[in-house]
Structures are given as C-alpha cells and as structure tokens.
C-alpha cells in the first residue's frame, strides 16, 4: 500500500486499508521490541517533538519510547514548563517549535480540533495524541491491534464501552477503528454521559451495564475523568461504582472468553474492581504494549521510513 498521509489528525478520515496497514507495520515493529537491543536506525537524524498541553504520562512516555526505539531525537515540551503560561497562542507556540525544524510534532491539547487547526499552518507532520473530547487516533489503533491479537478478528464481535462516553476521545476514535471494521459496539454509562445522538454512529446506546455486557466479547471500561467534571454528572462515585462499575458478577454475563480493556489510568474500585483489573481476562497491559508498537508504526510511516524501506 502507498502511504500518502502527512498527518494523523484522527481516524475519521482513515480508510480501512490504512488502519490495516498501520497494524501490519506495528506487527513488524513489535518484533524489534523482542530483541535484546530494542533499537533500529529507521528515524536516525529525525526529530520528534512531544508537544503536550495537557497532563499525560503514559501517552507521552509511549510516544517517547516509540521514537527512541526508532533512533529519533525525541524532545518533550509541556505547557507547564513553557511560555504558554505567558499568554502565547497555540499557533505561535507551534510556529516556534516548527522553526526548530522537527519532522514530527505529537500534539496533545485540551481543545477539540487543535491538531486540525495547526495542520493548516505548519509544514511538519502532526500526530494527534488526544484533542479535547474529539479523537485519540493512536489509542483507536492500539485498541484495534489489541483486540485483533486477542480475538483474531473484529467483525461481528460485541464490544461494550462503558463510562464517560460524552467526554471520551478514545470512544470517538474507537467508533471509527472498531466500528468500521464491523464490530457490534455498545455504549453504556449514566444518561448524562451517553448522548443518545451517538446512536447515529451505528453503535447501540444503553444505560444498563448488564445489557451492554451480556454476551460481549470485549468489555472496555473508561476512566471516570473526575478532573474534567466541573458539574456533577452523577450523584456519587459510590453510586457510579454500583451501577456502572465492572465486577465479577456483571462480567459473568459476558462470553466465557471475553476480555477486559481500559485505556488507563484505572480508578481501581470505581469503574473496575480490583480483582478484575489483575485477572487473566484483563488485556490492559497488552494495550500499553501494543501502544508502543502502534506509535512506532505511525512515526515510521510519517517519517517516510516506508518509502526508504521500499
């Protein structure tokens, strides 16, 4: 396949073949991760900037490790240590970074659409590492990869996603990756956090976790993002945990070989019981592992590694 894409802004405009191609590339990247010396020279001399305007440890670290495994020079820029606090606009910050000639900027920003906006003004590649409640494309791809590894297919699987759908960029990317690959998606959570309009994606909406989990192949729990809530969307964490938390009893409604996923970080005992988080059915750490491979694949493809290799 020809890789023509300069940016990865979201999965909304990804074709199925492109997603499959990223996963195939990630597979070959994963082989690198099994070696003693986990490093290849594919991106030697290339600069990757992690431009993060929102707190994130795991996504940033995952991209950083991915870049380093490919021998890129990886630089981290986060808003707390930048001139952003001095009132610089996003565009000016990005232009300043660009003047230092990076090849790829990985952007995490609290405003939906900010990578789309910046892509109109900069010449380097942009990877969206999460924009507001819009998308988190590398997460959508790593979820796809993780499920493929666990189940061998996507088409026809019942996948329940449970939690704060309203504010979740993970869901909006998964709807494109898993949804378009033919998964039977169920979205569940308190009605205040699950807009009925989301049914227009083809997913089913329910407010009953039992209905969502029943006969599911995959149950994906979302973090209750307490930090995002300025007004209460549900009465208490205790009630949330009772009605929408995943525990052994609810999970027993799923298929026998069902797996549990979570984009992290987990609120142990809130959306996911302590016991299930560490259970054999959990694929949460596999997600983290797949994440590095997927991000290596994206960096490799965007940096033109694909052209060089062929």
């Amino acid at each position: 396949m020809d890789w023509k894409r300069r940016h990865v802004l979201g999965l909304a405009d990804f074709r199925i073949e492109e997603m499959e191609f990223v996963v195939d590339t990630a597979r070959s990247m994963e082989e690198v991760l099994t070696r003693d010396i986990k490093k290849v020279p594919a991106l030697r001399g290339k600069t990757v900037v992690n431009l993060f305007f929102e707190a994130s440890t795991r996504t940033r670290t995952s991209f950083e490790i991915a870049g380093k495994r490919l021998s890129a020079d990886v630089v981290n820029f986060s808003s707390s240590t930048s001139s952003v606090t001095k009132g610089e606009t996003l565009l000016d910050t990005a232009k300043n970074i660009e003047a230092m000639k990076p090849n790829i900027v990985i952007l995490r920003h609290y405003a939906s659409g900010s990578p789309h906006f910046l892509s109109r003004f900069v010449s380097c590649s942009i990877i969206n590492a999460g924009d507001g409640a819009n998308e988190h494309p590398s997460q959508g791809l790593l979820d796809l990869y993780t499920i493929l590894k666990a189940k061998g297919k996507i088409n026809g699987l019942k996948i329940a996603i449970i939690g704060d759908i309203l504010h979740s960029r993970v869901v909006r990317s998964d709807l494109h990756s898993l949804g378009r690959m033919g998964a039977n998606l169920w979205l569940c959570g308190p009605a205040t956090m699950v807009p009925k309009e989301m049914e227009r994606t083809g997913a089913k909406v329910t407010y009953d976790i039992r209905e969502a989990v029943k006969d599911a192949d995959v149950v994906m729990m979302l973090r209750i993002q307490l930090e995002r809530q300025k007004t209460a969307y549900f009465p208490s964490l205790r009630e949330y945990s009772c009605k929408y938390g995943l525990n052994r009893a609810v999970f027993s409604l799923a298929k026998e070989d069902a797996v549990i996923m979570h984009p992290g970080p987990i609120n142990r005992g809130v959306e996911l019981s302590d016991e299930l988080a560490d259970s054999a059915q959990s694929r949460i750490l596999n997600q983290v592992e797949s994440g590095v491979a997927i991000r290596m694949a994206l960096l490799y493809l965007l940096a033109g590694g694909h052209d060089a290799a062929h």
Partner: protein
Amino acid sequence: MLLIKGGRVIDPASGRDETGSVVLENGKVKDFLPGDQAPKGFQGRTIDAAGKWVLPGLIDMHVHLRDPGYEWKEDIRSGTRAAAAGGFTSVACMANTKPVNDHPEITRYIREKGEREGFANVFPVAAVTRGLEGKEMADYAELAEAGAVAFSDDGKPVASSLLLRRALEYAKAFDFLILSHAEDRELSGEGAAHEGWTAHRLGIPGIPAAAEEVAIARDILLAKQTGGKVHIQHISTKMGVALLRMAKKTGLPVTGETAPHYFTLTDALLEGYDTNAKMNPPLRGEEDRMAVLEGLNDGTIDAIATDHAPHEDYVKRCEFIAAANGIIGLETALPLSLTLLSGGKMTPARIVELLSANPAGILKLAGKGSLRKGADADVAVVDPEMEWEYRRQDILSKSRNTPFLGWKLKGRAVATIRGGRVTHSLLPGVAVDG
C-alpha cells in the same frame, strides 16, 4: 433635490408596491409620482432606478460597532460604511463597548460620533445593568434623554430574574423597550457549539437549545407579569420560535428578531472546526433552521437583524473553543434575506417589513422605515438580480470574520441614500456625497 426615478417602490408601511418615482428634498421624502415621470421643471440630481427596487432604507436593530474601546475591530465610521454598502441607513448598536454604554456620556459620544462621521444613522442601545454586570439597573431615563433607543445586556444576559422583573416594571412607566439576549448561562456552561450530533461527533462541548428556550420563556413570563416590553434577540431554535408565537397569540408585548445566519446555515458548518461558524447563539440544526424560516414566513419573527460582530483575524485564528463568538453581517444581510423569496412563501414587501418597517416600529424611530410623504429621506435602491461574489478584499468592515466569503450572492444595494445624501453607490454617474 434628488429624484429616484422609475423603480419598483416597495413600502409596506404605506401599502405601496408599484412603479414610480420618489422625490427627496431637504432630508425628507417630498413626493411619490407613479410611472417614471419627473416633477415638472425638475432641476436636481436623478438616479435612474428602472428595473430596481426602491425601498425605505434598511434598519439593522442589532449591531456591534465596537466604538468606544475596540476600534481595531470596528469603529462607528467603518461599521456604518459597511452598513451603507449593505443598503442600511440606520443601525442600533449594542452596549458592550469599553467603557460599557451605561452612562449618558457614552451614549452621547456614540450618538454624536455617528452624526459626525457615520454613513448611517446610529442609534445607541444602552445597558440594562451597570457595566453589564447584572447587578444594578442603569439610569434608563437619563440614558434615553441622551439618545438611547432601547436597553440591552446583549452578550452578557441578565441572569437574575428578579432584576429583569424590576427593570421591565420600572422601564414600563417610560415605555422603554428591553432587548433580550435570551440565554441561561448556567445551561450553556462551557459550550461552544449547538449541542447536537455534529458537536457530539467533533467532541465540542455543547450549548443546548434549552439554554436559549428557558431564557425566552422566562422573558416572556416576566413581560406578562410586568406588562413591560421585551424584544427577543437572535432567535435560533424551534421551540424559541414556538414560544414567541404563543406569547403573541396571548397578546403579550413581545417581539423578536433572527439573524441571516440562523435561517441560512446549520451546525453542519462546524466540520473542520471553522471558527467562522462560531457564534452565540450557535448555529443550530436543520429542524431549527426550518422553524426560523417558518417564523419569518408566518409573522412570528418581526425583524431580521445581523448581530454584526466584528473581530480581528487572530481571535478567530485559533483552536475552536478559544475563538471569539460572532460574525460580521451588514454587507451580506440583504442578499441572504432575498433568498427567502425563493420558497415562494414570502413577498418582497414582507422582506422590507423585516428589514426596515418593523425594526423602525419596534424601536419607535420616528420618520424611519417608510417612504411616505414627510418621512426621512432614507432609501435603499436594490438590484434584486445582481449576482456578485463576496470577496475578502471588498469588505468594508474593519474585520473579516464571516463564513460567507466566496459565496455567490444575488441581490445587492446599488445605491443607499441617508437623509437625502448618497452614502453608497455602485451606479455609474451617481457619486457618494462627501
């Protein structure tokens, strides 16, 4: 003397829609002559209006001229120049200037600068509450004496129902009008776009239709309680239109306006996070747009007003949620309004009501909104067939924040006359008066 000759004179206030000539003298309409005749021995200037429409000058009852305080966005001169180009001869400007127009000195400044430099009549709207802070009533009587034609906390709506009740009750004794930006700010919260499918899909925090509707209902109920007059600004939702319709049926002293973008565009425009699709109230869904059209057709909505809201480029050149609200509208309102004719449900006379006669009536602007004998010599000569492209370099406003750039529009003011003087002309041989 100025003769506007042989055009289709559409003046709903006097029930006229026929070919004729309008004679202007000493800033007033002197006469109407049927056909294309000139008065005997006529010696003055003539504008040949054959094939054109001759309308009472358009009146935009909702603009932001940003003067005083934000003159880099717009000022009274540039804003009224854009108005004249759009066929407008009068504008009512909102109070969210800096300082806020909550003091007679500011009202007088706006009025006097308008008289001195304006290409259109400038009617200041003063604040309902001091500093638009929603806490204390402004001095309505003094502000009215200084020239305020109405009161509005547009942009920062009055949250307190009690304060609004008192304001309506107090203002009633003087027959003052309150223009209401109807919005429950708690419900709109951090929303940046209409809460609907598009915003959900794009992950943009939503402004529910109820944020507007709850406030419209409250305003109507307070008008009922007090007998005070309320005009609902920029109605954008289906239920908002329905509430106004019900209030009118009940005989309450309530009127309402909408803006061209609410009957032309929907939230589908948000795709790609175009910040020129960001305004407050936000662009709504197709069902809302259709309801606004219906409200315009059946007489529920009284006026089309632009909510002309100029902003410099860089406050729109940013991430969507951070972008300033609003678009400019004076130069596009007329052609966008003329598209209403294509449905076949509306007459040209109704469009003149919406853009001139009704705003004059609502704001009680004496001598405006009609071409009857003795009225002010404010006229728009319109070519309803002229096709043109709205281009960035032609914009007369200081700001260029509009989603209509590159649009092919039909219908344009080819000459605008205010007080008998030409303020805008695209006609060969007709010069703008200095």
